[in-house]
């Protein structure tokens, strides 16, 4: 089979305005980062609430959080995305539905669906990490806090969570990297993030090896960079004397 190698292809004009193919990659990366960060905000907030719920005394709240985790962990991400993109908008009240389907830019409505999907999907995983972090703390911490007269919300806010979060930095980092990688499913509902732009470049230029290599390098470098950065952060915020996790 014949193949025309051309590594300069990224600087060729796309034929649309003065854009070059590299601009497509940059735009796509912008969407990918926006998706990951917005999804991460939801995942971290909801995941922390759920994780705390799982460690609370009583029966009902821990059960609710446990059911949430099982549902969101056992259904494939793509099925969840289809539910948020194809089904949920149809269930909205009429006014909201018209706004979502017609008034919004298609890219914006796809973006909202993917962010909600990624956020809720990852929240189930964050929940489990937060729970593990809280349970890893010695029981004496809670008892001492009670003895000092703190109330339950204060115990979590002032004593348990600040320590738990430092322990779970490594697993949370890998969850963030997962959300970053998972955001590529957005390409399947037509959002032009990094993977979709790569495919489009490959189809326009027929230089598919170059296009996919560039995308791979971008994902790889960002992933590795972030991982090394978080390892450094983890060392900086480690509580001396507390369980020395992740010292690898």
């Amino acid at each position: 089979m014949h193949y025309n190698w051309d590594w300069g292809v990224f600087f060729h004009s796309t034929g649309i305005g003065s854009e070059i193919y590299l601009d497509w990659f940059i735009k796509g990366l912008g969407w990918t980062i926006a998706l990951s960060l917005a999804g991460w905000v939801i995942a971290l907030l909801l995941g922390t609430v759920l994780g705390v719920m799982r460690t609370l005394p009583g029966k009902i709240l821990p059960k609710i959080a446990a059911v949430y985790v099982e549902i969101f962990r056992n259904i494939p991400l793509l099925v969840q995305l289809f539910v948020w993109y194809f089904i949920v908008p149809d269930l909205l009240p009429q006014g909201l539905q018209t706004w979502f389907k017609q008034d919004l830019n298609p890219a914006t409505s796809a973006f909202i669906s993917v962010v909600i999907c990624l956020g809720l999907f990852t929240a189930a995983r964050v929940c489990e990490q937060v729970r593990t972090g809280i349970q890893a703390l010695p029981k004496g911490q809670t008892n001492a806090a009670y003895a000092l007269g703190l109330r339950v919300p204060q115990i979590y806010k002032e004593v348990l969570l600040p320590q738990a979060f430092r322990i779970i930095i490594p697993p949370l980092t890998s969850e963030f990297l997962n959300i970053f990688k998972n955001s590529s499913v957005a390409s399947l509902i037509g959002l032009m993030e990094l993977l979709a732009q790569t495919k489009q470049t490959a189809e326009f230029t027929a230089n598919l090896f170059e296009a996919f290599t560039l995308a791979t390098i971008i994902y790889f470098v960002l992933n590795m960079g972030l991982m090394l950065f978080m390892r450094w952060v983890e060392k900086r915020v480690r509580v001396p004397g507390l369980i020395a996790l992740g010292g690898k």
Partner: protein
Amino acid sequence: MDFSSLITAMPGLLSGMMLTLKLLVLAIIGGVALGTLLALARLSNNKLLSTLAGFYVNYFRSIPLLLVITWFYFVVPFIIGWLTGTNEPIGAFYSCLVAFMMFEAAYYCEIVRAGIQSISKGQVNAAYALGMSYSQTMRLVILPQAFRKMTPLLLQQSIILFQDTSLVYAVGLMDFLNSARSGGDIVGELHQFLLFAGLVYFIISFGASTLVKRLQKRLTV
């Protein structure tokens, strides 16, 4: 909601599920085999071999599976063409299978590596003292024990793989999810079909992971 059209669509859905399961089983076999080789390479004393295996694992773990599936869908036919000199198309199923095997091998490798490292060093020394070679030690002493320990983790990873097979949607392969989507599109009842697909995935994954948890309890000494 009316679910009656699901019954008429059942044969299509079943054949989709068969494809999903076929892909899953082959990918697990290939992934575990390749992953074990990679784990042995990572733990070997040969610097070059362990660095290469380490790079392989880090590489596949830091790129999205969807990227790998798409890459291979475009690229594998080219490579086969170069290797064999023919222009035979190999089809989406095989390119997806190769993608899953190579991608999952990186994850299985880490599990196998941890399993091997959990076997005490004395076992290796004892095997050497008995005059066994490296391959005998691994095959007859270390790996059988390691695999028993890591079966729950390997199964857990395979459940994740089961869910991930739905991503073949990207290259138009008719797996379970894609059959449900297209079946629903044809009769205009996408909602029911997607919810049904979600329910089936949930029941299988949840059932399987409950069984794995029970197995894990029985295996722990």
